[in-house]
């Protein structure tokens, strides 16, 4: 933009320039870019994204530093004591707390995250693969015309709505129909179960992430070149064999991509899970058998949301940043893992 002093120093052009600087700027912007300009400018935008990611990770890591330092890099991920109690103790430690105020062993929260994410992605993967095959290969056109938009709509529903249905409908139903008084009594000296817990959390999370996976896998199956499937059919394969041995195999990269995307969403899901997970830093014990499904948990993202009120206590703040760092690094690892998983297929000459 033209600095005002320049306009003042050339009295001849003063009138014209004062009336139109914005116009001139817009006009210059509208000129077509040369290739070199385009490469530089777009490159700058693209590297800005990279820069933001790097800065974000660095910022979160610096803020999480007190927790990592006070507990040890690895040991804060471990077990020991009651994590809710530890987070609670952090609140009233003043503005300049000693190192001991940062004591944290976050394993129950990490366990809750791994459990909900892992279980829901596995269930979602199986379900979405079968649903996508049906939609692409077997569904009559009329059903497909309804199901595909419905799936996309489901994928766009805000997660808090699933959480609301979970807490108002699913959890009370589980609490009154699936959990018998005897089952409650059997663990009454270990943990209280009320309906919210592993089962409802996994169900809600699965419903949340499956539509996205279906949408991605459907697109991938549709993109298989017809010549491949027709070739298989010409060799005598029936429809199921064609789909299973040709289409699904060729679409593996997309299936991996769907799983990675679903993982990322499941990892970061906070509010919905905070509502239905039982919201307790507890590690359910598989020895409890079926009761395991009803025991409460709380994933990392939900823990961040629930402790946000106490964010002014420095140890709580640092702990929340530590959770954030863990989630950030996990999603980073997921993207890299997804890329690596696709490498062998790329070597086979599949377009990924």
């Amino acid at each position, binding site marked *: 933009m033209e600095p005002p002093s320049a306009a003042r120093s050339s009295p001849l052009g003063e009138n014209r320039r004062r009336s139109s600087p914005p*116009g001139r700027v817009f006009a210059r912007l509208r000129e077509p870019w040369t290739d070199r300009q385009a490469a530089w400018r777009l490159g700058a935008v693209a590297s800005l994204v990279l820069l933001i990611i790097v800065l974000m990770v660095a910022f979160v890591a610096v803020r999480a530093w007190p927790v990592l330092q006070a507990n040890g890099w690895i040991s804060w991920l471990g077990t020991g004591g009651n994590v809710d109690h530890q987070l609670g103790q952090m*609140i009233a430690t003043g503005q300049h707390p000693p190192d001991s105020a940062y004591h944290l062993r976050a394993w129950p929260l990490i366990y809750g995250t791994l459990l909900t994410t892992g279980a829901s992605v596995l269930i979602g993967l199986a379900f979405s693969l079968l649903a996508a095959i049906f939609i692409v290969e077997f569904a009559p056109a009329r059903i497909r015309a309804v199901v595909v938009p419905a799936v996309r709509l489901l994928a766009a529903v805000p997660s808090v709505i699933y959480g609301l249905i979970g807490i108002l409908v699913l959890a009370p139903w589980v609490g009154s129909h699936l959990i018998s008084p005897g089952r409650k*009594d059997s663990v009454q000296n270990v943990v*209280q179960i009320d309906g919210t817990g592993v089962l409802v959390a996994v169900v809600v999370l699965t419903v949340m992430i499956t539509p996205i996976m279906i949408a991605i896998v459907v697109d991938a199956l549709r993109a298989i070149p017809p010549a491949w499937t027709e070739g298989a059919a010409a060799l005598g394969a029936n429809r199921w064999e064609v789909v299973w041995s040709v289409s699904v195999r060729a679409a593996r990269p997309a299936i991996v991509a769907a799983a990675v995307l679903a993982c990322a969403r499941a990892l970061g899901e906070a509010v919905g899970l905070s509502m239905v997970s039982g919201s307790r830093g507890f590690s359910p014990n598989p020895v409890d058998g079926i009761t395991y499904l009803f025991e409460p948990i709380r994933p990392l993202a939900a823990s961040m949301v629930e402790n946000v009120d*106490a964010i002014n206590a420095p140890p709580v703040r640092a702990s929340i940043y530590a959770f954030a760092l863990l989630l950030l690094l996990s999603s980073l690892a997921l993207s890299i893992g997804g890329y690596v998983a696709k490498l062998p297929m790329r070597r086979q000459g599949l377009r990924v």
Partner: protein
Amino acid sequence: MTRTRRLAAAVTVVGILAFALPAGASAASTITISGATGSAPLVALLAKKYVKLKPGKVKFKLAQGGGEVGVQDAAAGRVTIGNAARDPRPSDPSGLVFYPIAKDFFCFDTNPANTLPNLSLAQAQAIWTGQVRNWEEVPGSTITGTIDLIGRTAASSLPPLVQQLLLGGKSISPLAALKPSDGLVEQSVASDKNAIGFNSGYYASQKDVHAVAFEGVACNLQNAKSGQYPGVRNYYEVTRGKATGAASAFINWIQHSAAARKIIASIAIPLN
């Protein structure tokens, strides 16, 4: 050319509005408050009345979070006033000023399906330490099955007071499900017939929960006022340094005006 100029004019106008509007809005001074969920209904009523008395002069932003959070928020300068629901402690951040505003009681409460008439100290201790886990073992209980303990997170000042005044110094069992606010404890107790929780007076007096008498004394405002009921605590407004400006005026109004005293008396206990 005219189109671009018009666009530029539009951008300028939006820019000016964006700067000018908040400046105009801040003519009324805003008091931000966070903290105790127990005193939140009382402070909300007081703030509502105060705004009515001084139209256009003052605005409130009320948040909850728990009494301990209120103290920390005030110390960090995040809010103008923190709502505290316990007496000052030597371990509190230095430089805080506690202004007492009222007293309130707190009760054990159960689901209305369980019209437990009374808890003795020994019974309360057995239940809350996790020694007794079934309602069958509690005389007077009208339901059976596991006892669901509903407690508060460490953001609340209430658990230590319950332990001190109603449990004879015994600690609440780690089995208790911890809720972040009085409202959520009330909701949990109201929706689970096996539950027992503890709530500040305002919440325990609601119809959807049953306030349990303690040592033969009914838990209500009247008995708390007379001093018969032991579960009573002080509410404070906390500021970093001495309160100034609008906050000071508001606190002064709460402490000394007849209108504020009337509101306090309706749901809590005014100070002398």
